């Protein structure tokens, strides 16, 4: 049986296998996280979160020869619970000529040469939010997929047969999963989302073969931990949030994971939890073998604006004052650009990259001191909209710049629960005025933008979805706008080299790879996955 493109009518069976073509996917664990060339093995392509490719077949001089090779359109799925139509929000992985594509509850293996589906796995959920799915992890011939209701499902990468499943959080407590797991050595590291009910965030590590739980790291401290002094008591800490819903990065030499933690709970109502509220809103460095915390840096102490510090912490090395420094940088959702020494966690740069006025200074550790008057209040309080979100930033070692699609604008935040013991969100926020998207190329050693590009748009830029970024060795920066254009810039300056209008906004991660000697650019936009390469 050969399936035509766009086959995926809603099926009761969990899997449809195509018998004519059985791939032989096997990913050598030693190449996971290495610079991507003919594969894309992790959410960010490598362990460093750079989303940088050394490929240079596609370059400024020939971008005008880019052509669509194939498109895979998701059909037959229809509206998901609370979501009107499927939108690809994953970064596909590529191993052995097979692409792995996800939306909530669905995983496809596609032939990278044609876009034809090889198999399709459908999960029937019992709860959880269907808001997005970031993609799978892969190790040897096993694919790991997270479901909205918090199951880690291991599947045979060649056939889609389920090997085992493991539940790690209770969807009734508003835990839900959108993440891509991260494989590091013999650990499948799994994060979780969900902030409607004041639950604590955590990271779980599972054995890739058996699914046995290896360790759990909680995002908020428990009894006996000195960090409890940043909470009024143990109960508030145990209900303090700090979700881990975006994948972290990893330094194999230091053997440290760098994980971003989400917003504090209750979300907008902070009056019941005076203190900094560790380790929510932080970058934490963890030992992947034990889950032990080595250091933390809190980007938004005592968050009351859903600043959700989940943007990728990007790892890179730079020579500073004649010495090679191992650094980690993040364009945080709270509007600050932060660069840290990734060995010690000491800060080098902490600087706003969007217009903001909610802090009075920095602590000696370089953490911003929020102004209490800017907290949500009953009468309304003006503050920034989220300056970015989950969409991937990038770093180019060629230019030494971090690239982020930022959002500039303001919102009025209301406190809707002014009791002494608020719970849940406890407030609302809605943007006011024009909210615009600005592509920024930021020097991570100064925090200053070297160049910016304001995307013209009559409509407000959505703060919760947006185009991701990829850079290449040939000085390309590939991203999109909010008006269905895929755009290639010159990475070293604000110059548009090429654009093409497609059927929806670029909505997942952009990847590139060499297949049969040809460089491809691949990205999801709305319900379709597009593969582009140069004309023959």
């Amino acid at each position, binding site marked *: 049986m050969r399936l035509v493109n766009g086959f995926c009518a809603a099926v009761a069976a969990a899997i449809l296998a195509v018998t004519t073509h059985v791939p032989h996917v096997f990913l050598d664990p030693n190449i996971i996280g290495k610079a991507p060339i003919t594969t894309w093995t992790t959410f960010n392509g490598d362990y460093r979160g750079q989303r940088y490719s050394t490929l240079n077949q596609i370059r400024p001089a020939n971008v005008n020869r880019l052509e669509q090779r194939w498109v895979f359109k998701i059909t037959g799925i229809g509206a998901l619970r609370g979501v009107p139509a499927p939108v690809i929000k994953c970064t596909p992985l590529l191993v052995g000529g097979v692409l792995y594509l996800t939306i909530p509850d669905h995983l496809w293996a596609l032939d990278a040469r044609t876009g034809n589906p090889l198999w399709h796995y459908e999960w029937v959920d019992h709860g959880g939010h269907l808001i997005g799915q970031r993609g799978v992890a892969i190790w040897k011939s096993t694919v790991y997929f997270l479901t909205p209701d918090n199951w880690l499902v291991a599947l045979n990468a060649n056939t889609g047969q389920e090997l085992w499943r493991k539940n790690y959080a209770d969807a009734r407590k508003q835990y839900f999963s959108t993440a891509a797991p991260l494989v590091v050595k013999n650990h499948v590291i799994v994060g979780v989302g969900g902030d409607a009910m004041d639950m604590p965030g955590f990271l779980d590590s599972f054995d890739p073969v058996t699914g046995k739980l290896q360790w759990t790291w909680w995002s908020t401290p428990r009894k006996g931990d000195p960090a409890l002094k940043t909470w009024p008591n143990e*109960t508030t800490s145990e209900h303090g949030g700090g979700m881990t819903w975006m994948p972290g990065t990893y330094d194999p030499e230091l053997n440290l994971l760098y994980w971003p933690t989400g917003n504090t709970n209750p979300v907008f109502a902070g009056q019941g939890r005076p203190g900094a509220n560790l380790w929510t809103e932080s970058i934490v460095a963890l030992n992947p073998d034990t889950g032990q915390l080595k250091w933390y840096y809190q980007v938004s102490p005592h968050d009351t604006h*859903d600043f959700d510090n989940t943007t990728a912490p990007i790892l890179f090395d730079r020579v500073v004052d004649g010495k090679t420094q191992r650094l980690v940088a993040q364009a945080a959702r709270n509007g600050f650009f932060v660069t840290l020494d990734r060995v010690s966690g000491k800060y080098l740069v902490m600087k706003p990259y969007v217009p903001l006025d909610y802090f009075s200074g920095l602590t000696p550790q370089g953490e911003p001191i929020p102004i209490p008057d800017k907290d949500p209040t009953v009468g309304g309080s*003006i503050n920034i909209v989220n300056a970015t979100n989950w969409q991937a930033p990038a770093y180019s070692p060629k230019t030494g710049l971090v690239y982020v699609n930022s959002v500039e604008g303001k919102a009025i935040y209301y406190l809707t629960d002014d009791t002494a013991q608020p719970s849940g969100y406890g407030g609302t926020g809605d943007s006011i*005025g024009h909210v615009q998207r600005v592509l920024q190329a930021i020097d991570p050693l100064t925090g200053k933008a070297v160049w910016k590009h304001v995307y013209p748009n009559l409509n407000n830029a959505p703060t919760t979805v947006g185009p991701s970024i990829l850079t290449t060795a040939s000085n390309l920066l590939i991203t999109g706008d909010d008006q269905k254009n895929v755009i290639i810039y010159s990475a070293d300056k604000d110059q548009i080299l090429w654009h093409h209008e497609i059927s929806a906004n670029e909505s997942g991660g952009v990847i590139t790879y060499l297949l049969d000697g040809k460089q491809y650019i691949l990205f999801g936009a709305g319900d379709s996955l597009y593969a582009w390469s140069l004309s023959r």
Partner: protein
Amino acid sequence: MRHPVFRAMLAGSFVVLAGFAISQEMPTGDQNSAQQKPYQSMTTDQRAAATRSFLGLGPEPDKAAAKRGEPLFQRNCAFCHGQQARGATGASLITSDEVLGDDHGEHLVPFLKKGRPQNGMPAFAAMSDDQLSDIAEFLHLQVEDVANRGTYKVLNILVGDAAEGRAYVNAHCMSCHTADRFAHIASQFRSPEQLQRGWIWPTRNGDGSLSTTATVKTSDGRIAVGRVTQVSDFRITLVDRAGQMHVIDREPGVEVQIKDPLAAHQELIMMLTNNDMHNVTAYLETLH
């Protein structure tokens, strides 16, 4: 089981949620919005239902029963569990397995009858099934009030000083506006919150005078002037005074000048203090 409902939710075409009051992205991006009913224009009940469905919360609590259950809860349970069941000496019940595992009392009623004497929770065997069921609905409503942010309502936002607000308006607004603009302004809005939004950032709907306009000069010297309906790096779309649409590719040599009549309000938003906002709203609210 108080399990989420997994049908294709929400009859009709309107779907879910706006605001960015959620940690992850909400499905309001322009790419999906074609047939969506804006969250802002939903009724309170529609918002609550849409959010409940999106979040996968359990069945809707029975509000009448919850109201009957409230005094029973306050008398019998609040001492340990807090007035809103968010915990006191006893545990918070918002994320309790017993509560979340119940739909409409079928599990909680027998549980409450027995209590948990080993943990110090008494049995409520003397209360009727109806009473215990009402307590169960009260608990479900407490969960709903926390977890379903579609039910959230702003409180009384009139916290400012009207006299100070009047002084601010006189000092900052009269270079563009006349006093007529503010007469009866409060009666144009449904609520003080709408008034607050409305004076800071007026809606452009239906009033051509607030539309963004542009003058576009093409490389061959032609000039188009009109209301902008779309603009990107690559294209601008205008509707001129005669109602004719102009779609112009922004090629090299094309000059675009855009004018936004709300530019002064955008500047205001970037600078406005909370006190000034509250004071002006308090003042304008007196202008009915």
